[in-house]
């Protein structure tokens, strides 16, 4: 069996914006190295979740090992760690980068570098990674590879003539990418003989085998039978199997310093294998753990409740399972007078939230109601203590509150100059404060704004896209907290307050928001057998009212031979819709109602 030295290992990931062709390039690399036979070739090989393929995005980081004979005649082991591109999943990128020595920077030849990509490149540079720039999609008629290469040189400082020009779609230039990986990226450093140190960069739960831990070996050797210790978690386990991804799991006798692979050790408990932790051996433990990386912290919180209250325990177990694959997901029990027992979940952003909800429903067969996401407010109480509130309903009475602070973010936007006007207008509408503006080579500009986080969590990204015809991109990070005049908006349905519909809004916008919220609710709450009053109130004072009129007629005149089947199918469909609704008092409220606060036209 040929033993790899680290000299012949290259660990790299791909940094790219959504749609810049990362998954296609990865597919080509797998093909060229014969890792996946042509017969088994599906598109987006590494996006294994149904959701990823449907949405054309990468959610989870994935790893794959490729064997490559380079032009120098030597055999190399290339480990590609695939990373997500959406702004919500930036933390997955950091995890992947920490396990690599280099990265391919893939930029669309007709689009240029996007804000998100730039942020990830800086992350990679901070971690000391070597960058190989790849200009993709050169086969497209509107591509301008030279301009994009210039831009890369101006922004990142890598000479334009070092950019590889490829078309992942046609395969042109892809062979050069493999050569560049071998030539330009350094092999991993690490000592085979030193005490074991392996970085956990991901893990997933396999219902039959327990936790599969994705590791990047730094020092030492790991094999079946090793007694391992989680340096932060302190758990000890016996390794049952080690292996590599090709791209399916394939067991090997050992993993050595520099390699990327997995281990299985009958780890059953979710909390026992923390991503970012260092694995060592109990027999000869390492003295110093590897630098972990900062745990991504949630930016928005929402209540997740089973429609059927009997499913509470199932939901709890499902969340625990998901959390194993998704380190950024947090949850704790929550009780709502309206929705019963559920969980307050923390998410990185709205896409993250949608994906978690969809996975819970699909993979665990749960019917859920999710409340509108909220940011976390800092509330200074008159009695002197301060509390953090991520659930609008828990905002204390106004007379007990000294002040409320809301979280703000610094948003960086990269966009062609012609769209700056519309984008600045959008930022102003969302209570933003202008930061600075910087022109970049080509026709593009980097714009920064300081905005309340609550103003960008919902449709800001979509708005940004629509006001720039898809050309603008953004990145953001928390910049601090600021005191604002905030109030709680309550919603009463048929005379009773529904806690799950409460929202925290700016005082100046409160009555306007209240009015539009009840109007919106009127549109989404279906007619009941009786009239339903909808009211918006602030501090007990009703500021807006709408009425959902009673259902007047739904019966059909004829119900003969074939009509019966038609009617039954219609009723079955309606019953399914009804099961998705939550009965609050005597009113059935659909999921959309709980999100209504997000979809108010401005």
């Amino acid at each position, binding site marked *: 069996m040929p033993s790899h030295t680290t000299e012949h290992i290259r660990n790299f990931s791909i940094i790219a914006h959504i749609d810049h062709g990362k998954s296609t390039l990865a597919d080509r690399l797998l093909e060229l190295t014969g890792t996946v036979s042509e017969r088994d070739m599906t598109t987006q090989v590494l996006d294994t979740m149904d959701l990823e393929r449907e949405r054309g995005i990468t959610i989870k980081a994935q790893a794959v090992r490729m064997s490559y004979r380079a032009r120098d005649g030597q055999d190399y082991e290339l480990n590609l760690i695939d990373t997500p591109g959406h702004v919500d999943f930036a933390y997955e990128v950091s995890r992947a980068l920490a396990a690599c020595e280099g990265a391919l920077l893939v930029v669309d030849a007709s689009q240029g570098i996007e804000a998100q990509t730039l942020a990830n490149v800086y992350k990679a540079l901070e971690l000391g990674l070597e960058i190989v720039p790849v200009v993709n999609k050169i086969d497209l008629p509107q591509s301008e590879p030279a301009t994009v290469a210039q831009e890369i040189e101006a922004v990142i400082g890598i000479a334009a003539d070092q950019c590889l020009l490829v078309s992942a779609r046609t395969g042109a230039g892809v062979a050069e990418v493999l050569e560049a990986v071998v030539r330009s990226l350094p092999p991993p450093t690490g000592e085979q003989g030193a005490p074991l140190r392996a970085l956990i960069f991901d893990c997933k739960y396999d219902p039959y085998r327990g936790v599969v831990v994705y590791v990047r070996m730094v020092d030492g050797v790991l094999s079946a039978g090793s007694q391992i210790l989680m340096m932060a978690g302190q758990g000890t386990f016996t390794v049952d199997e080690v292996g590599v991804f090709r791209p399916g799991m394939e067991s090997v006798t050992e993993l050595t310093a520099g390699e990327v692979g997995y281990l299985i050790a009958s780890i059953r408990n979710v909390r026992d294998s923390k991503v970012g932790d260092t694995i060592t051996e109990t027999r000869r433990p390492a003295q110093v753990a590897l630098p972990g990386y900062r745990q991504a912290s949630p930016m928005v919180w929402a209540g997740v409740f089973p429609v059927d209250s009997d499913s509470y325990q199932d939901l709890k177990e499902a969340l625990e399972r998901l959390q194993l694959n998704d380190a950024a997901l947090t949850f704790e029990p929550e009780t709502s007078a309206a929705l019963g027992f559920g969980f307050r979940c923390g998410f990185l952003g709205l896409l993250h939230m949608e994906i978690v909800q969809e996975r819970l429903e699909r993979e665990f067969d749960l019917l859920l109601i999710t409340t509108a996401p909220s940011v976390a407010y800092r509330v200074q109480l008159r009695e002197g203590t301060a509390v953090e509130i991520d659930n609008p309903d828990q905002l204390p009475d106004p007379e007990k509150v000294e002040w409320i602070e809301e979280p703000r973010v610094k948003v960086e936007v990269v966009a062609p100059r012609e769209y700056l006007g519309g984008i600045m207008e959008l930022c102003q509408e969302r209570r933003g404060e202008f930061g600075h503006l910087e022109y970049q080579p080509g026709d593009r500009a980097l714009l920064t704004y300081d905005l309340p986080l609550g103003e960008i969590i919902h449709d800001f990204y979509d708005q940004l896209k629509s006001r720039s015809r898809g050309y603008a991109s953004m990145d953001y990070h928390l910049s601090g907290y600021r005191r604002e005049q905030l109030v709680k908006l309550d919603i009463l349905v048929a005379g009773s307050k529904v806690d799950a519909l409460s929202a925290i809004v700016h005082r100046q916008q409160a009555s306007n928001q209240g009015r539009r919220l009840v109007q919106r609710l009127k549109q989404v709450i279906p007619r009941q*057998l009786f009239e339903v009053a909808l009211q918006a109130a602030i501090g007990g004072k009703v500021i807006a009212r709408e009425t959902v009129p009673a259902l007047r007629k*739904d*019966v*059909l*005149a*004829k*119900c003969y031979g074939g009509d019966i*089947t038609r009617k*039954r199918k*219609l009723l079955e469909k309606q019953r399914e819709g009804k099961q998705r609704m939550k009965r609050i008092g005597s009113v059935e409220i659909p999921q959309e109602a709980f999100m209504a606060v997000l979809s108010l036209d401005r």
Partner: protein
Amino acid sequence: MTAETPPRSPRSLYLHIPFCSQRCPYCDFAINLSGEALQDRYVGALLEELKLLRGGTRIELDTVYLGGGTPTLLRPELLERLLSFVFSQFSLSGSLEVTIEANPEGITPEMVRLWLSLGINRVSLGIQSLDDATLRWLGRGHSASSAVDAIRSCRVAGLENLSCDLIFAVPDQDSGGFEASLRRLLQFHPEHVSCYELTVEQGTPLQREVKAQRRTGPSVDAYLRERRLAVELLAGAGLDQYEVSNYARSGFQSQHNLTYWKGLPYLAAGSGAHGFLAPDEGWRLGIQGGGGGLRYWHLRDAATYIRAIAAGGRGIRGHEWLSAAQVELERLACGLRLSEGVDLQSASQLARARELALMGLVEIAGSTVRATTGGVDVLDRLTLELSAA
């Protein structure tokens, strides 16, 4: 579950006659316009299918229903061939009801006498309206006066069980049109009246026109007003509502249609026809499997149906075995349409029915629930409420 077990063999037979002289703009039924040439072969195919359905067993029929289409377009000798075949192949109960659907245009006393002589004892006349403006709006080929002539022909020939269809809530007509039609119709003392509100069906010319806003669709206001008017006027004339759209003098309820609403099995033959068989009767169609009942339906195109039968098949387009839950949903959906109501089968159903009774939508008598006049308007929702309980 139910107190009485449903009879295993069907006691009703539906025969579909797909021929029409024109396509009405609101109609989405399975019909064929170029009928003349097909008629012989079509009736031949029907007889073949009936033989297969009977499968050598004895079936006693309470009702036969010739629907369409326009069954009266069938040439007299073909009508005779069809009915005499049915009467020779099946046993007949003492109170046999044989209905034919008819369009008013060109109906003469002689035609009605012929039907009576063939054993038909009930005529369902599609007069739709006795108001010419309404008939024009509906795109019907007949006038109010020809409808009146048709009614007279039936009476002159001695028909004792006449049903007339009316359409109400027709837009662009002041409600006077329907009220006047109904009052005029009652002067002829029909034994049975069906009042259907205009329904805009998917894929009909009417639906395209409403969608393109060239025509107004029916309004709920007109529906509510005119339906209450119908209930009142008809009751005053001795015709009580016994189903959402159907009114009859005592003893003249449509026995055939009641089998649909009571969830009883019925045979159906002919293009586009839907039938329903008891759980252990799948063999009649050569269909394996089981469940709470078997619904089946035929190929919609007459020529295709004829070819399928000629090739030794049954002309079946599809079938569905019902689960217990589906049987229950159908039981509620159909049973609630009847003024006699439907049995409540669980304590939770009774509890939900009591809530609905407080809202004035249903009445409960013992273990039976029935929709009130207001409840009938929202029958789908009532069905869902009770089926969820």
